[in-house]
C-alpha cells in the first residue's frame, strides 16, 4: 500500500495550523472541484485533496497520521493495521478502464488508518461514503430498499450514432452466509442507446445495492461522458467540424469530400463562401427525435507561394483585384 503525503498534497508545512489546512483545502477545492474545474485530471486531483483534508482537519486523525508519517520517515515500512483490506469499494469501470465512480471512496491507505464511514461525507444525507456501512451495521429487520449507485462510462461519438454495448466490471459488497461483507465482481453488459448525449444518465434498474429484508435492490446510474474526438465537437445533438477549403474553392464554389461520423459525403461549397461559413447537413447530427444537425465550418487555408509559378499566380490575383481594399473598414 502506498504511503500518502497529505501535507504535500495540500501544499502545507507539517506544522501548519488547522486554519492553514482549511485554507489550503478550500483554495485547491475551488481549483480542482470536478463540477467547476477544467483542469486536466481535476477529478483525481480533487479526490486526493479532499482525502488529505479529511485526514488532517480532524485533530485525532491528524495525530494518528503524524505518528505513522514519523515512523515512515525513520525508515520503518508502513504497515497497515490488520484487516485493512477487508473493506470494500464500489467502482464502475468501463471495458476500457477509463471510467470511474465520481463518489469513489478514499484510498486504501486512508481507510486502513481511519476506517470507513468516518467524517462528514458519511454523515446523514451525505451522498458519499459510508451510507451502506451504517445501514448494514444497524441490524434493522425492517425491509429497506438498497441504495442507488452511480458510476461513469466513457463512449465514443460513433457509439451514440450507432448505439453500443459496453462491458463494465462492478465491485459490489455482498454479505456472505456469516453476515460478513465480501466483494463480489459483477460484469454488466450495458446497451448504450442511440442518440445519448454528453452528460446524460442511464438508469439500470435494480443494479444498485441489494435490498434488505426482502426489499428491492437499488438502481445503478451511469453518467455518459464522450471521449474527445479529433475532428468533431458537440453542442447538444449538433455535431460540428472544421472543413478546410482553398481560397478558390471558397470563391468559385466546389464539391468537396467531407468526413462525417457515418462516412464521407460529397458536400457542395457555395460560390462566394467566406471564412467561418457554416454548411448544415440537416439531420446528420446525433440521432434523436428530432435528430441533431451536422455543421461543416469552412476554414480557408491560404497556400504559401513557394514556386515561381505560384508567386506569379498571386501576382495575377493582385492585378485582377487592383480595386480590392481589404482595410477599407479601418479608414473610417
Amino acid at each position, binding site marked *: 500500500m502506498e504511503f500518502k503525503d497529505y501535507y504535500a498534497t495540500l501544499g502545507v508545512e507539517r506544522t501548519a495550523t488547522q486554519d492553514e489546512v482549511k485554507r489550503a483545502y*478550500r483554495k485547491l*477545492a*475551488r481549483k480542482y*472541484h470536478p*463540477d*467547476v474545474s477544467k483542469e486536466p485530471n481535476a477529478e483525481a486531483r*480533487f479526490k486526493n485533496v*479532499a482525502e488529505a483534508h479529511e485526514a488532517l482537519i480532524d485533530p485525532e486523525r491528524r495525530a494518528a497520521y503524524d505518528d505513522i508519517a514519523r515512523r515512515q520517515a525513520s525508515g520503518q515500512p508502513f504497515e497497515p493495521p490488520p484487516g485493512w483490506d477487508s473493506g470494500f469499494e464500489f467502482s464502475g469501470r468501463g471495458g476500457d478502464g477509463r471510467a470511474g465512480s465520481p463518489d469513489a471512496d478514499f484510498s486504501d491507505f486512508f481507510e486502513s488508518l481511519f476506517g470507513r464511514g468516518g467524517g*462528514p*461525507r458519511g454523515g*446523514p*444525507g*451525505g*451522498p*458519499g461514503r459510508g*451510507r451502506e456501512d451504517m445501514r448494514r451495521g444497524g441490524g434493522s429487520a425492517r425491509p429497506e*430498499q438498497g*441504495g*442507488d449507485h*452511480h458510476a461513469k462510462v466513457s463512449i465514443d461519438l460513433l457509439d451514440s450514432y450507432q448505439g453500443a454495448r459496453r462491458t463494465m*466490471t462492478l465491485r459490489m459488497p455482498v454479505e456472505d452466509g456469516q453476515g460478513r461483507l*465480501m*466483494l*463480489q*465482481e*459483477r*460484469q*454488466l*453488459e*450495458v*446497451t*448504450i*442507446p442511440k442518440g*445519448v448525449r454528453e*452528460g*446524460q*444518465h*442511464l*438508469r*439500470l*434498474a435494480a*443494479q444498485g445495492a441489494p435490498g434488505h429484508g426482502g426489499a428491492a435492490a*437499488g*438502481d445503478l*446510474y*451511469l*453518467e455518459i461522458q464522450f471521449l474527445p474526438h479529433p475532428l468533431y*465537437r*458537440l*453542442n*447538444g445533438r*449538433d455535431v*460540428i467540424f*472544421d472543413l478546410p477549403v482553398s481560397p478558390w474553392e471558397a470563391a468559385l464554389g466546389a464539391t468537396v469530400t467531407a468526413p462525417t461520423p457515418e462516412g464521407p459525403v460529397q458536400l457542395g461549397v457555395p460560390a462566394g463562401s467566406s471564412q*467561418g461559413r*457554416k454548411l448544415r447537413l440537416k439531420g446528420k447530427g446525433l440521432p434523436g427525435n428530432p435528430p441533431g444537425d451536422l*455543421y461543416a*465550418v*469552412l*476554414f480557408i487555408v491560404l497556400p504559401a507561394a513557394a514556386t515561381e509559378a505560384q508567386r506569379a499566380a498571386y501576382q495575377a490575383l493582385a492585378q485582377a483585384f487592383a480595386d480590392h481594399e481589404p482595410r477599407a473598414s479601418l479608414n473610417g
Partner: protein
Amino acid sequence: MDEPQHTALSGVVVEEHVFFTFTALCRASGADAAQLQAMVGEGLIAPTMSSGAAGAGRYSADSPADWQFSGDALPRARTALRLTRDLELPLSGAALVMDLLAEIESLRSRLRTAGRLP
C-alpha cells in the same frame, strides 16, 4: 470472490424517460428530505407536477409526497450536494455557481459552434 456474474442490460436515459417521486429522488441523489425541500425552495429543482393535487401542472409547497420531478432533477440535485459539501457553500451559493456554470457552458458552446478562428 465468486465467479463474475454476467448480465445484459439496457439503460434508460434518465433525462428523457424517467420521472422521480420525492422519495425516489432522495434515494437516487443521496439527499435527505430536508435538503431536497431546501433545493426546491431555492429553485434549484422544480417539481413538474403534483400527482395528487387537483390543479394539473401545479404543485403544492406543503405536500412533497405528491411531488414529481423530471429526470434532469437528479444530476442537478447531485451537483448541488457536491458543491455544498465539498466547497462548504450554502445552497444559495451552490445555486449561483450552477447558474454561472450554465452560462459558461452556453458561451463555450457558442465557441465550439463558431469553429476555428484564424
